[in-house]
């Protein structure tokens, strides 16, 4: 699956809080990083992750990760 953080992410860190193996806060570049494990996660998990985002800034699509 391809997981992408959209540019309107507000860096609240909820995704990091609830899914620490999939996302990390990058303080240096002031963004949320998608960790390698996210690309291998089950689709159902990723769909839930996307639903849990406060502003819907997590995009989950079928396809190879870049």
């Amino acid at each position, binding site marked *: 699956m391809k997981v992408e953080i959209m540019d309107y992410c507000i860096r609240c*860190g909820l995704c990091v809080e609830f899914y620490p193996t999939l996302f990390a806060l990058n303080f240096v570049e002031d963004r949320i990083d998608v960790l390698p494990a996210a690309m291998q996660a089950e689709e159902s998990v990723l769909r839930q992750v996307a639903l849990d985002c406060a502003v819907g800034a997590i995009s989950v699509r079928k396809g190879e990760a870049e």
Partner: protein
Amino acid sequence: MQIIKTEVAVIGSGLAGLSAALVLAENGIKVMVFEKRPFQGGAVSNTPMCTMVVRNERKFQDRAFEVHNEFTNYNGNMGLARTWINNSWRIPGLITGLGLDFAGKVETSYDEIGTINAYTGGFPKGMNLGDYYLLKARGKGHGGALICLRAVNKIRALGGEIHFNRTLTEILVDQGRIIGAIVTDKAGGKTRIDCQALIVATGGFSENREMVKKYTGFDYTDANCSNGGNVMFNHFVNAQTTGEAHQAVWAAGGAKGPVSAFGRLVPGPGIVSYTPWFTRNNLYTVAEQPYLLINRNGKRFINEAVAQTSMNQGVAIKNQPGRYAFLLFDEETLEHLEQVGTEYAYMIFPAKKITNLREQFREVIEDQGNQHVFVADSLDDFSRIAGIDREGLLETVIRYNQLCDDGYDQDFGKNPKYLYPVRKSRFYGLRIVNSAYNTLGGIRTNEKCEVINDEQKPIKGLYSAGDCMAGELYGDPSLAVCSLSTVAFTLGMVCADQATAYVREGI
């Protein structure tokens, strides 16, 4: 230097700034919003979304105004308070206009205005002044973030512009009137904004340690109180709230207003998430219970029943040595918590019954390494590990237990139903320090949200709304926790009304 032109520039994209920009755009005014971060939002982005509305009926507004003035001891800008109270009814329409719904509404009848049990702790004494609207959020997030995102989209759809990564560094004034501002990008590049009116809605300056110390007396600390500081800010990490806009307003002639930060929290680790409105266990709820509260001298200092309101407890803690306090209870009270339940459970963290509390204490202390949570077999041990004066503690506990046995709190008048003695080992405690969403106040305005100078004369075309100026509602000294969304929404809209009239008619 690049120069861009607009009719009104709004600095800050939290609730206050976006409310202002939305109304301006709807009024057909050319508006640009400038935001320091690469995305919209402010303090509200990371908070549960509940807002208060005073009904648009004269008697409700009169009563809410009366309560506000009484409980601020007539210390605030009463004209501004009336402006806020008279205009808050506009909030639901603004939110539903963004295509958002409310999850519920809690009405306050006329007779209930000014009673305890407000749903939020920022008002004087926690008094409820109006109806509470609970916003339906998305996923595990909080509704404030969604409001800000939808507002940005609508502002753009109406022809407004949002410019991210732009920090206000200078306000341009000519003969007492706004003519523009300068914003700076991350690379240091400057842009001059030529505008007729400027609205500053930049929130607090919590991450500027020098300003926090200078204007509040607090020493900034992190969420774990790891450097011995005594105030924690309840926003999400890396908020970059460093006060450039405050400094720009003051440099342009704006008067300096009082600044406050008076809520309360138990330091981590292991209490709340770094997204502060998610708790890791029940200890946050335990900290709000009306049990014995003492300072580091072991002295009691408040009717603990008012502790459910963070402002009440926070203000009292601010007056204690070191600006912190300890909640203390014994094994029997712990049993009561588990068997019977809490005396008070904030709606955000519903926890009527608490289970496995001993394990929660153990986990936070031993596994998380929290230095602010204590369990001891004796009061002597408790005083030692918590750093409380032993003689003071013992004297207080003896006195307090006598009051409990008498069924009457002669010292602070606490409701007898909350008089739980501290007798039976083991003894449990939590250190409680001041906290706030952000600093509140610093910019002064009049009742029209016009920024004023030391003579209380307005700087024409300069307005302010939200946390950066809401100290005006409470006066000097300011005793407020946070402006709350009701103030941000409402005064943002009022700024837009004023700026619209000023741009169109020079009023």
